[in-house]
């Protein structure tokens, strides 16, 4: 019991003050029949040293992105995290505090949220941002729910097939018990088929959900898609990549009404899927329909500028079953990390980041898909990811060989797109060097050559 204080003497004194004879007596309100009569069957207690050694043993059975060269993406990326992000976010005053219910002793967190909201608006061009949601997938479905609520009675949600497959699954799971139709629009050569989209959008459509750059890394005709949605009075929900906004037009310029993203890429570790943060920003008119916490500026009794949680009547603790969402927490610590990251990067850092991703990804595509059975599946401009087709349709084997040679080479697409059974997705961040890209190409292309030799 390394974290408790009470000595046997303390316990005795406390029991006496309470008027109880034993600690067990304090549990009398739990009916006898419900009490456990045996110890929990879980592993024995470990001291700090033993725990650390135990975790080191388990860890040695994993291979991580510090040991393999990581070309995996699909919504989670191996971007560089400046040391200041870790150093500041590990201050106990940040990570051991809670939701700022008492603004007088939470100005640090409140101002940090306000600055997060400000920077998300600067990044996206949108009017308002909340204090963050769980992750990209839930942010996307919350945007869909906002659209349905804003456009009363519209019962159709249109989702492009090029939106992250797991985000699409989340939308379907959330809407399963409602009479809302989810229509998926196929892609044509890697980007959304505009004519099929135009046919599907009607005056019953609450929103069109678009990802740009899309799951395949391809750039969509986002502005045209916004126009198709708006023509019928539907909203555009754009899933964006925060790291692209140093160079690409922002969601506001493209016509998005609600912009959502997975915020992992902004200074947060990959950590096998979470915790991350869901970014959600919108046009002004939707502020009272936003889920989650929002920090607002006001003045204290002495007239100083300060910050509070505001517009709380949207939330579950007041509106209960009529709340905009059931969400209670935000991802405070990860919103903080992303704020620190954005503050360190600034406009020029974000521009460099975007440029590096584009240049390196294009270089990698040219190296991988030159003179071999590998080719790019879609001939469309892309940001930091691209889809590679293996002419011999042996993706699993190829990726395994890459892994053996020290590379997380890509993600098989078959599990989500059966027609892309011969394809995999490759992501290239600013961290990947020419030498690493060349080595990957050598391994994959070289592997193929070897295989071909064997066949011959």
């Amino acid at each position, binding site marked *: 019991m390394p974290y408790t204080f009470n000595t046997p003497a303390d316990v005795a004194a406390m029991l006496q003050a309470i008027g109880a004879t034993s600690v067990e007596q304090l549990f009398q309100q*739990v009916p006898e029949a419900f009490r456990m009569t045996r110890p929990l069957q879980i592993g024995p207690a470990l001291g700090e040293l033993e725990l650390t050694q135990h975790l080191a043993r388990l860890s040695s059975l994993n291979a991580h*992105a510090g040991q393999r060269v990581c070309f995996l993406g699909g919504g989670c990326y191996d971007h560089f995290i400046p040391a200041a992000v870790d150093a500041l976010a590990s*201050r*106990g005053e940040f990570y051991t505090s809670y939701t700022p219910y008492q603004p007088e002793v939470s100005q640090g967190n409140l101002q940090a949220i306000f600055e997060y909201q400000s920077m998300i608006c600067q990044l996206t061009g949108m009017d308002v941002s909340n204090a963050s949601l769980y992750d990209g997938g839930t942010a996307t479905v919350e945007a869909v729910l906002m659209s349905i609520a804003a456009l009363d009675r519209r019962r159709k949600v249109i989702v492009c097939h090029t939106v992250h497959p797991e985000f699409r699954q989340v939308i379907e799971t959330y809407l399963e018990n409602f009479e809302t139709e989810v229509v998926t629009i196929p892609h044509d050569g890697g980007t959304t088929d505009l004519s099929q989209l135009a046919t599907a959008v009607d005056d019953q459509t609450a929103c069109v959900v678009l990802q740009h750059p899309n799951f395949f890394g391809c750039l969509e005709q986002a502005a045209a898609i916004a126009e198709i949605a708006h023509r019928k009075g539907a909203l555009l929900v754009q899933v964006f990549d925060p790291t692209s906004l140093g160079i690409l037009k922002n969601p506001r310029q493209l016509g998005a009404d609600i912009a959502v993203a997975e915020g992992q890429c902004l200074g947060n570790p990959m*950590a096998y899927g979470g915790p991350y943060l869901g970014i959600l920003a919108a046009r002004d008119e939707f502020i009272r329909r936003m889920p989650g916490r929002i920090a607002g500026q006001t003045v204290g009794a002495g007239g100083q500028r300060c910050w509070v949680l505001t517009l709380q009547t949207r939330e*579950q603790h007041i509106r209960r079953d009529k709340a905009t969402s059931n969400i209670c927490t935000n991802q405070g610590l990860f919103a903080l990390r992303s704020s620190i990251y954005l503050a360190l990067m600034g406009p020029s850092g974000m521009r460099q980041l975007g440029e590096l991703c584009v240049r*390196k990804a294009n270089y990698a595509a040219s190296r991988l898909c030159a003179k071999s059975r590998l080719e790019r599946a879609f001939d469309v401009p892309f940001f930091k990811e691209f889809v590679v087709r293996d002419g011999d349709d042996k993706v699993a084997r190829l990726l395994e060989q890459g892994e053996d040679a020290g590379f997380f080479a890509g993600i098989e697409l078959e599990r989500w797109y059966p027609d892309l059974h011969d394809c995999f997705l490759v992501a290239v961040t600013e961290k990947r060097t020419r030498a690493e890209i060349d080595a990957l190409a050598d391994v994959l292309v070289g592997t193929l050559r070897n295989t071909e030799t064997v066949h011959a």
Partner: protein
Amino acid sequence: MRNRLATNLLSELSKPGRQGVRLPNPDVFADESLSDLIPREQLADAPPPLPELSEPDVVRHYTNLSTLNMSVDTHFYPLGSCTMKYNPKRNERIAALPAVAELHPYQSERTLQGLLALLYEVQEILAEISGLPAVSLQPAAGAHGEFTALLTAAAYFRDKGQPRTKVLSPDSAHGTNPASAMMAGFEAVTIRSTANGQVDLEHLKSELDERIAVFMITNPNTLGMFDRQMGEIAKLVHGAGGLIYLDGANMNAILGIARPGDFGADMMHFNPHKTFSGPHGGGGPGAGPICVTPALGPYLPSPIVARDGERYRLDYDRPKSIGRVRSFFGNTGVLVRAYCYIRTHGPEGLKRVSEQAVLNANYLLNRVKHILPVPQGDRCMHEFVASAAALKKEKGISAMDIAKRLLDFGFHAPTVYFPLTVPEALMIEPTETESKETLDAFAEALFRITEESAEALHDAPTSTLIRRPNEVQAARHPIVKWTKPD
């Protein structure tokens, strides 16, 4: 120490030309124009107008901001229902190991055997503590766990051909309960509580018809009382064909003492960020793993971690699953911390956690009840709810006044005005990681506050940098981001 000159926002500190991160020059395609790679119409005219700062700017700014927070590392934080216990440093270091922090969610299973083994063990541990053997680690927070479990229940009833549409929860429940019910497509019905905070059985009975799907109960409840009618409630709800959901917010009271699965629950969530000491992070992240009965197991989200002999894998082959409630596996970082916490304590240690939490709460209750009445009586589990109603009537001192004044005494305030069923409520949860000395000092501060004049208290806190911010102005004319002055 707080630097009182540091009051600017980042955008106000910004100066063109400063930059906190310098990335390398491109080593490939350096000479290509960007518009050769990206169509010109897709390119932004300028990068986003973020602040321009040097690294020391950013470090000083955020370090100073941090000094404006109360936190568990710095203060007693008896925020009822939030279980603000100590957050062990060893858990932070382990969660930051590259073999945890630098794992990609789409790595192959063969490169994840250590982590999958750990997550499998977390499933087993939570099953054992809850007495409910089927586990999903996917939900991202407690409220998300509630919602996921309700979707699971909906799928179960749909599969059985039973159109059940109602979810019941007591009026003392967290607001997330009815909100989750609504989001999962159910009708939310509120059940009254009796004066001593227990479920009003007569009212419950009157709502138990063929439409009942789930009764959501927090037990121990939000007053910190174990509802002794639990057996009767379970019999009634199950008799009507409904399921019982246990809101696990208060599990810190019963670890190794009683298992929800043994007292009638069919489903529950854990809050690892509370019960198992994952830090609260200024409002998140948490996690909301759920445990259910074997009958409900097939409907849980996918994937779950499965074991074949010595190998661990992700099981997606679950045709009845509701699907996904979030992207990727789950809040792994939070689950790893929870695992470290649980393994640090072991079976006896976890039980001792609950015993000490309950001892501390009862001791504090008995110190406080002479100052502020505790309507629920002399005993509690891990927390209790005092009422300032009488004090307000006699002296004009409200729960809010007390909360604000406590800040001057160096204590974080309890949860106030919740549960809604107690007037002028102060919900106090000391947790097991506080000493008798701290509890005594807190009770002493409460006593001194109630001796002060109401007038003086309305001005509290007086020692903080700001006091009583104008929430009306903030809500009437929302300013939710920095804008460049004209």
